């Protein structure tokens, strides 16, 4: 049986980040990926001849700075078309609002001076809070239990950072931390387009509406991300999201990580209450001193480890990780250039005309229904650079919300209805776009679950919500990356500061594994 210091299950960004960090520390590491392509949700596909399309994620907001620099991603080919692509809040009358710079530094378009000023104030304040929270992303969440290996110095720095906001701002932070975004937007802003855009960005990928309690925290989480030292970034990698995967794979290889794709792990081998390796679907068994799961925590414990090796309460807690997916993914191959009423296609196009539109779209999925007017974020990679579609053609990638993960009228009918409603909204904003469609591909949350192993089709491998973030992610007993089973660790987006494409949970886990090894 081949043997490694560490086996990482799952070759997504977190798996690759974790493996590379361990290999850089001298460990012999194997990454096992079930799909044919490494890179997880950042991998690309060639669904139709002549077109390239992102699989799932199509923009980068949270690339961990340690991952970016220490994996030397730039040297391995990662560069950006733009680290802050503009956001266009689409309006049906063509009166769009365009936000440019980090997290909407400047606004162009017709908007009142009052709103312009108010937005600057709100943005600055929220960026300040997000900045104070950002260092937390690069550390293992603390625990109250004895001997938890808390990083007290870093925690003190974090606390100091929050105090440094000043008395009034700290009080504002406490007021806003657990509030819903809709209340704040309605307090501060009057413009529906701007409110709609921020409300949409807040709940992107989440299973909550802008009026859901604590939703503002998700916006802070979004703003706490950075790309190449730029906070509040919305970056489009050059030649597509796939280049993130490619660069990480190259970096892992350079560090000496062995990569094995197309090999499904069927079981984590537990002997004498210790994880000693993995068994593949092929029957092959590979042993390792450390087994690290960078896939979904539910799948890890309930399927790969299995209930016989875990306690009933722990299994219940795992089963109860909330992981409802509310986002659908649309890919279109277009045989011409769509016209979103004059909007700049080299921007992130958001259809979310008001807070109400986002909340209404969410209301439907609460009852397993398809919203009549879904809201969405659209990217046309082919508008930014050549190589994504044949000349004169375009490829459109959209995250459409909200889609029911458990539709009451059945999966097929929900998919058809959701696609129809989505195209109908698109047609309203870009008349004639339906006639341009050459191919289409539409993934509902349950399709995403089937294809990418995300429980419930939730993009973040567990809903992002205050009660499942930080030291509560995915739940307290495993929030520090270690598990009750000796030798088994978690390193996926289901752990802090997971969600999204960042590599941070993987990197944090590797640091924890290394420091625990030393201690």
């Amino acid at each position: 049986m081949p043997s490694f210091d560490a086996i990482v299950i799952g070759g997504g960004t977190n798996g690759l980040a974790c493996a590379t960090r361990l290999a850089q520390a001298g460990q012999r590491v194997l990454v096992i990926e079930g799909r044919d392509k490494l890179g997880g949700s950042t991998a690309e596909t060639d669904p139709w001849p002549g077109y390239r399309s992102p699989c799932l994620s199509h923009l980068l907001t949270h690339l961990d700075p340690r991952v970016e620099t220490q994996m030397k991603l730039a040297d391995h080919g990662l560069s950006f078309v733009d680290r802050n692509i503009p956001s266009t809040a689409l309006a049906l009358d063509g009166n769009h609002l365009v936000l440019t710079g980090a997290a909407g530094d400047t606004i162009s378009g017709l908007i009142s001076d009052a709103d312009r000023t108010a937005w600057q104030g709100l943005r600055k304040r929220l960026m300040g809070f997000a900045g104070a929270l950002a260092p937390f992303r690069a550390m293992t969440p603390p625990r109250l239990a004895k001997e938890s290996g808390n990083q007290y110095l870093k925690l003190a720095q974090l606390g100091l950072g929050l105090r440094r906001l000043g008395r009034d701002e700290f009080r504002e932070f406490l007021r806003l931390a657990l509030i819903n975004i809709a209340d704040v937007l309605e307090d501060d802003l009057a413009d529906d387009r701007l409110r709609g855009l921020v409300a949409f960005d807040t709940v992107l990928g989440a299973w909550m509406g802008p009026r859901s309690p604590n939703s503002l925290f998700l916006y802070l989480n979004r703003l706490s991300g950075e790309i190449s030292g730029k906070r509040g970034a919305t970056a489009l990698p050059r030649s597509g999201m796939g280049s993130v995967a490619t660069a990480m794979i190259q970096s892992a290889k350079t560090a000496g990580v062995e990569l094995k794709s197309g090999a499904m792990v069927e079981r984590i081998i537990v002997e004498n209450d210790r994880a000693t390796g993995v068994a593949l679907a092929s029957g092959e068994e590979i042993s390792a001193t450390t087994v690290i799961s960078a896939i979904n925590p539910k799948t890890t414990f309930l399927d790969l480890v299995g209930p016989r090796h875990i306690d009933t309460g722990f299994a219940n807690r795992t089963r109860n990780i909330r992981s409802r997916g509310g986002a659908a993914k649309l890919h279109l191959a277009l045989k011409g250039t769509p016209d979103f009423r004059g909007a700049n296609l080299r921007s992130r196009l958001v259809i979310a005309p008001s807070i109400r539109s986002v909340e209404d779209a969410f209301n439907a999925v609460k009852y397993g229904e398809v919203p009549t007017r879904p809201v969405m974020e659209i990217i046309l990679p082919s508008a930014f650079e050549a190589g994504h579609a044949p000349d004169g053609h375009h490829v459109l990638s959209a995250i459409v919300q909200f889609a029911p993960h458990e539709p009451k009228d059945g999966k097929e009918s929900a998919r058809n209805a959701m696609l129809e409603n989505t195209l109908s909204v698109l047609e309203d904003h870009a008349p004639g776009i339906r006639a341009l469609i050459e191919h289409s591909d539409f993934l509902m949350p349950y399709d995403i679950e089937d294809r990418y192993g995300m429980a419930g089709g939730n993009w973040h491998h567990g809903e992002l919500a205050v009660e499942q973030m930080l030291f509560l992610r995915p739940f307290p007993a495993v929030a520090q990356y270690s598990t009750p089973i000796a030798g088994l660790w978690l390193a996926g987006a289901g752990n802090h500061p997971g969600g999204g494409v960042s590599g941070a949970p993987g990197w944090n886990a590797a640091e924890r594994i290394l420091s625990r090894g030393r201690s």
Partner: protein
Amino acid sequence: MTDPRLHFKTPLRQTPFHSRVAEANVLNKWAAWGGYTTALELSDGEMEYSAIRNSASLYDLCPMVKYRISGADAGAYLNRLTIRNAAILAVGSVHYTAWCDDEGKLLDDGTLFRWADTEYMLCCQERHLPWLLDTAAGFDVAVAEITEEIAALSLQGPCSASVLNAAGFDVKALKPFRMARFAFDGGELTVSRTGFTGDLGYELWIAPDHAVSLWDKLMEAGAPWGIRPIGTHALDTARIEAGFIVANADFIPAHQALREDRVRSPFEMALDWMIDWDKGHFNGRRALVAERNGSTSKWALVGLDIDSNVSTEGSIIYHDKKREVGHITAATWSPATKRNIAIAQLLRPYHDQKSDNLWVEVYALRELQYAKLMLRAKVTPRPFFNPARRRATPPGNY
């Protein structure tokens, strides 16, 4: 069928033996137990206790909660649930067992009956269906509560074997913790040589519609031996003499405890002898390994022998009359041993190294006035009463 909305009119259910117990209950002393009306004392508590130790006693056991666990993984499931090895329990056998939560704290204890290769019955004091069902995820097993499907009677006392034989059930060859089946009244009677008295005795399991005829049969056959229906008070005296513990009397099930320091591990309730460390993982194992390796148990369960004849139930125990070191969970004057006995929880190490200077503070009610007593207590082995007839096979011909 009665309207389920009228359930409040009968807050307590009646057991299948109720008509007979009610007839015998001339003192009319009733109490609620697990949702049923049960008798505390029928006609004379001392005579009822005496029947347990000197002739034969009949006790209505129906409120004990029973679960059927069946399926190909039944053994593996019970090994994950309980601390003892259920897979090696022979078909037709019974063992005492206990189960814990993730933190290794006791949820309950009970008896496990293996009816067939893939079928068990778990019998316990408290209800646990959600926990049992949650534990079943991932196992090929069906768990069902069958408390109402089985009427249970406890026939205990030195003459109990003779009574059964006279009733036509030959149990001479039946060893302790084994089961036998007999045809009865057109149905099937299961007899297990188990009980809660520490004496020779049997428990009888039958479908509810045969319950009354079984009762009548045993009362008739047992008449020459002075068989007597008994209430819970008499049984409680006998169980304390036998050193047995009861959930919610001697320990709080972890799922019911509100105060975090009230929960107890098997080590702390002297049940660690049952733990099978080699059978693979079971609920709470990791916590129990840590407790064992770190010697972090805080409490110990002990038997106490106390000066005087005043019952010490619920009393606080002091070391050197000053330092509070534990409390008594069950106590009685023991007629069989003529001692004042108690089951107690003591902080370690007052259960052994520092057990030489223990005192029990008792407030004895004497004609409307409490007298405060400090009584000397000595740690003593359990069971307090352990007659050889309990284990003899064939049983003595009393």
